[in-house]
């Protein structure tokens, strides 16, 4: 277990790619997070509403509800939980656009792991 501000936080990982999901979860697990997963935006929205999720890490392109749709519906319901988008960097959207839509950060694939973890920790710290 690694000491981290993320410890005990309810984190939702949304990605249609199970391998990527489990790779991210591996790190979050080691930092003591309570992990929730979803493979599309629609499922993710339900989990956010029921489970009291504190941080969302979501892919952009997914079948049945994209990361952008998820972000938009969350912001519409005035929930300002930290939201980090993972993008493939090909014609998805720019970081500026993501920030404008209310996301806290946009990380481009292939993912810089350290940057991602640092960002997530920052989100926890700034939201307190």
């Amino acid at each position, binding site marked *: 277990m*690694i000491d981290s501000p993320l410890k005990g936080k309810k984190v939702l990982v949304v990605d*249609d*790619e199970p*391998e*990527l999901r*489990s*790779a*991210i979860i*591996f*790190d979050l697990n*080691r930092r003591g997070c309570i992990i929730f997963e979803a493979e599309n935006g629609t499922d993710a929205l339900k989990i956010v509403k029921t489970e009291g999720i504190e941080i969302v890490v979501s892919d952009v*392109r*997914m*079948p*049945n509800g994209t990361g952008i749709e998820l972000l938009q519906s969350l912001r519409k319901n005035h929930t300002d939980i930290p939201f980090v988008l*993972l993008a*493939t*960097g*090909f*014609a998805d959207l720019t970081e500026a656009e993501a920030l404008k839509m209310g996301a806290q950060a946009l990380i481009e*694939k*292939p*993912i*810089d*792991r*350290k940057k991602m973890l640092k960002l997530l920790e920052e989100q926890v710290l700034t939201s307190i």
Partner: protein
Amino acid sequence: MKRYILLSISGFVAFGFLIFLYQHSYSQLSDRHNDVLKLFLMAKQVEATLEKDLLKSRNFLLMTYDPIVDNEKEVELVCTDLHRSETSLYQLLNVTLDHAIDGYCSAIDEKMRKVERFKSLNAILRNSIYFVQKIAAEKSDVNILRSPTTLTATLKDQIINLSLAYALISTPEAKSKLEALLKRESTLGKSQQDSNEVAVAAMHASRILETKERLDELTKDIVNSNSSQLLEDIRKSYFQSYSKAESSANTYRQLLFGACTLFLLFILYNIILLWRAAKSLTDANANLEDKVRDRTRELEKSQETIIQQQQALISSAKMSSLGEMAGGVAHEINTPLAVISLRVDQLEECLADGSIKELDIAKILAAIRKTTDRIGKIVSGLRFFARDGKIAPAQIASLKNIIEDTLSFCNERFTLHGVQLEIKNSLPGDLSLECRAVEISQVILNLLNNSYDAISELKNKWIHIEIADRHPFWEICIVDSGHGIPKDVQDKMMQPFYTTKEIGKGTGLGLSISKGIIESHQGKMFYDSLRSNTCFTILLPKAQEPNSSPKEVA
């Protein structure tokens, strides 16, 4: 043209008819004219001869018929002349009968009868003269005859002589003298014999006188007969009718001349027309040649341009499909790459802080292996496109692999947009196919993209790839949830540059290039209008014919 031919023919016919009419009337006229002229000439001659002969005979008879002179020969001559005249009259009669100149015929006939009478009177005269001559010979005193007025003999002799002289000379003075003597004699009384002789002489004398008078009258009658006048009349009327006929012939001639002129003008007009037409035709031909040459040059130029543009468009279409593919590929690769990157990082971290568990290492490595495999698969699919399809010969490949590789370029996008993509294949094995795999893959991708575009707005989105064995072909059907293509689009959609997509979205080359590729493999690609869903069917021969390697598609 037809009109001119008809006109020409009718002109010729009319022309010929007029010539015939003219010829006919004129020949008739001239033949008859010659005959009639001959006849008139003959009649004139005959009449003239007759008149001459008759007058000669009469004069001879009246003046020189001298019983004292032996003029038997002259008398014979007169008779011959008369006979000749009669014969020629007869001939004339025949000729006039032939020409049916009726009035003149009867005149000649009459004349002939009169000549006959003349002849018979002449015979009577001769007879009487002969008789008187005989009596005179008996008296044998020719001198008395020479000077009948010197009466030296007895009264009886005087009377006989006088009567003879009277008979011979036959003058009215002699007659009156003889009558006076006879009156005196009857008062003197005389013998029966003497009185008989005197009576016979007197009788002959008076007959001669009478005959001479009658001959004279007859001659006058014949000479003054109206036949000449009649001939003249007939001639006149003939000439009238002749001139009438001639004038009609002239009319024909004039008509003919007019027709000739018209015809000539018509021919001239036609010749001018023809000449003009020929000239304009020649001009037009020359122009046409120039025009055709220019147009051909223009066409060649524009064809070159079109070919260049087509090639440019085709290559741009290829590039755009390549770009589409590249986007898909980048996304496909980026995600596994992210996984590997994360995993490797995690592994390094774990190794560094020593918190690593064997189980975790195994888990991470398995994940990395799985992901690299996935990338390898994508890259092996791309390998097709890296090769230059143009020079690649057909090679044995697996249809199954080709389809699966193709799907790796679009699967992600399709799934993302909720399009269900399914391969319906119940066939075992790899489905060996001799082809240029890159091209077949392009065709399938193109059809899949078309389907995707067509159904992206539908509620129900699916695409099925159905594979069937139609030996010696493989049949690949790409069916989507769309409800078919309108008939008017069906007819044109295989043509280059035809597109139903929005401007800028489609090049219109996809289907035509796809069709070309399939045909270059001796296969067929067509739209199956019998199915309720939109379906494109590809038939590909499993093996290429040995001597017909697939042709290139630009």
